[in-house]
């Protein structure tokens, strides 16, 4: 049975007076991979950051409208709790440089002071690193700091860190744009495996990536959600002329 995990209804966001997300409405189903694409400045990253309430941390940033996680309005929930349930992976891999790999994975627990028994922590670390396809590469150096890891490995560590919190949804903000092609494909491979347990929303600048990894794609243009459809449909027969122009490379 399909359930709607994230639903936006007439959602708007501003930076001061700058209206960057305009009346966006969409429903995202459970265990789907949704790609969000569009040219620079179209509001896709801002919209993504509203979902886990990172947007409001910028001074002068505001939002209005309905944005729900299951049946609860995200903006009436405790923001810290929202971020437990909705994880995020950023464009540049950002593992904590002062923590070991082990501590990085469970950073969400450790930094929050959540008491979890050591045995359970060990399990969480192993499970998360395995889900992030990193376990075999680091299992012997868990207590070293992660500075020797490559870019792709660091990004997978960040994914493991997000998974460890057992979120419902994982948001990705251009997760492979800072990685080399081999790391990129290993991360994309991960998306296929992760969607069994999580719902993934991926902002990407790379149309081909959107076509490769997602079930559904959303196209943003100048703050508006122009089109939201099955990926196959979007890329073969888009409904809107703007989508058509973007896909065929009229602008990027």
């Amino acid at each position, binding site marked *: 049975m399909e359930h709607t995990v994230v639903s936006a209804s007439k959602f708007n966001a501003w930076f001061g007076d700058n209206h960057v997300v305009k009346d966006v409405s969409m429903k995202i189903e459970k265990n789907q991979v949704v790609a969000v694409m569009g040219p620079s400045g179209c509001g896709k990253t801002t919209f993504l950051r509203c979902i886990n309430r990172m947007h409001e941390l910028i001074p002068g940033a505001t939002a209005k409208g309905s944005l729900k996680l299951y049946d609860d309005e995200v903006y009436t929930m405790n923001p810290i709790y929202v*971020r437990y349930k909705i*994880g995020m992976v*950023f464009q540049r891999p950002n593992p904590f440089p002062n923590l070991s790999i082990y501590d990085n994975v469970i950073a969400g627990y450790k930094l929050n*002071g959540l008491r979890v028994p050591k045995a359970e922590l060990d399990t969480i670390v192993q499970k998360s690193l395995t889900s992030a396809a990193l376990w075999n590469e680091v299992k012997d150096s868990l207590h070293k700091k992660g500075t020797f890891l490559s870019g792709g490995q660091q990004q997978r560590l960040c994914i493991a860190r997000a998974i460890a919190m057992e979120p419902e949804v994982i948001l990705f903000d251009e997760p492979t744009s800072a990685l080399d092609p081999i790391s990129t494909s290993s991360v994309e491979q991960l998306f296929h495996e992760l969607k069994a347990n999580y719902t993934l929303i991926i902002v990407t600048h790379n149309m081909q990536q959107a076509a490769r990894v997602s079930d559904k794609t959303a196209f943003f243009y100048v703050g508006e959600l122009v089109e939201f459809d099955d990926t196959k449909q979007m890329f073969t027969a888009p409904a809107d002329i703007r989508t058509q122009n973007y896909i065929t490379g009229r602008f990027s």
Partner: protein
Amino acid sequence: MDARLGLRNTKSILFKAVIIFFAFVITIPLIIVLLYIIKQGVMQVNWHFLTHIPAPEGETGGGIANALVGSVIIVAMSSIVAIPVGMLAGIYLSENPGTRLAYWSGLCVDILQGVPSIVVGIVVYFWIVKPIGFSAVSGSIALAIMMLPIVIRSTEQTLLLLPPSLKEAALSLGVPYHRVILKVIVPCGFAGILSGIILSIARIIGETAPLLFTALGSNLFSTNITKPMESLPHLIFTYATSPYDDQHDLAWGASFILLMFVLLLNIFTKLITRKWNIQL
């Protein structure tokens, strides 16, 4: 043309020679001072010197135990006050750079950095010595006021250099603001903050003027912080200007100890910034 070119080149070479001369000649006074203090002071230091209080005037023997312990106590008390207040104020300034409070507070930090130490001393005299008398506590407060600008500025500058992605990563995990700062940001800036703290300590253990009218000094051994307490720089000042040779000897020994300690702290700071700088 060639003759002029030759002249210009000669001028350039001469200039460089003059610059090098002036730049390096200034190291000579420093070396002279260091060597003299070491020479005069090292012979004074022995176990007796470190564990006895000064002998009465005109008598030989004695040591600087009261000043040593006094300096440690006074500086420790200043640090207990100045380090947390300074770090937190520095965190505020680095996290809220555009606000009005940050502007005026930052201005006050700059002002305090320029206030002469004697002025701080006489102000604290009225604040604390008048009500409760000459005491080590009053000396510590005066020194703490002098430590604050250094700790604040180095904390602020260290934290401003950290990449914002660090904060973002922690916030996205649902970590609340105070834990982000205390458990992520501050530990990552640890090297810079610590070196600022050590530099501020190195600065105040040699300060005399603020202690002249607050902690005063004393010939007796005391750990009572509500009473006057001797300190290394104050002892050096008192005995340097006294007519007795034995007291001069004590002052040389104290100078040696003080100098070595200050040097060690500075070297330690350099080692920290080189080794512990967490790679970002």
